[in-house]
């Protein structure tokens, strides 16, 4: 039982540590070397800013319309 358990533990650890066993770290393509990560972050920041601006804009327009109606 003991060798089987030992081999299972070794396999589990090796699968966890597969990244660190690579000979050349650059060959792994760390995410800070991959442009897709940077592009996606910028796209998401733009989308969030766009949604926030749209909400603020719609609230502002709503307030202006309400003010005009109350004056009439």
């Amino acid at each position, binding site marked *: 039982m003991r060798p089987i358990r*030992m081999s299972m533990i*070794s396999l589990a*650890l090796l699968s*966890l*540590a597969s*990244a*660190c*066993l690579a000979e050349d*770290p*650059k060959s*792994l393509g*760390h*995410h*800070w070397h*991959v442009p*897709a*990560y*940077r592009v*996606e*972050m*910028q*796209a*998401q*920041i733009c*989308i*969030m*800013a766009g*949604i*926030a601006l749209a909400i603020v804009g719609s609230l502002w327009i709503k307030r202006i319309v309400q003010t005009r109606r109350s004056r009439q």
Partner: protein
Amino acid sequence: MSLLENSRKQVFHVLCLLMLAVIASSTLLSIFTEGVQIKILKDLCMTCILFGGAAMAIALGSSGIPNDVESRTIHPLIARPLTRAQYVMGKFIGTVITVSVGVAAMALAFSALIFLYQHSFDTYLCMAVLFTLLEVAIIAAIATTISTFATPAVTTVLTFLAYVGGTIKIGYVGGLIERSSGGITKAAYLLIYHVLPNLECFNLKASLVHHDAVPAAYLGQVFIYGICYIAFVLVLGMSFFAGREV
């Protein structure tokens, strides 16, 4: 109050002790040679810190608001001069501080192990742990927001899916978008792709293991992205909770 409430929960103690036990038992990796051993130790410990932190954020973030609503302890809180937005923000900050305490304990145990092996402190460790904490804060924000309109069980499942989806987003969902040809399918994949957080970019484990420096501009961008995502998700949660009957 949220901090005290969270720190008394069993799940917090169990997860902390479990992860600390795994980190401590990683010293038993004597079957590997010295150079590989320290790399595996760093890899295993960072994985433990991330999994432990994420599990704590999901467990604590998903139960805070629904428990208060169910046990009606929210009524005296709302009766005070406290807005609903402040209440949601307080719940989120309480969850993040509680998880930070657990992550700090794990990071201390990990840095002690590194000191034992390397006889010096690793400067990359602080950076990796800080960005892991930012990733955990995003998971806590998602859990807090979903918990404003869903039950704890649904919140746990949805947050876990968001966590897994956010981790495999660029590699897997990005590949699905490239392979899909249909208009509606592609639009659905694109929606999922842009809604899910990009969690993999907070993972600086490889930098710690290989001592591969990460560009400062990239780190700055990741930090700003994390803060923006947390703020956006929390504002959504506050607006959901503002219109809800409690």
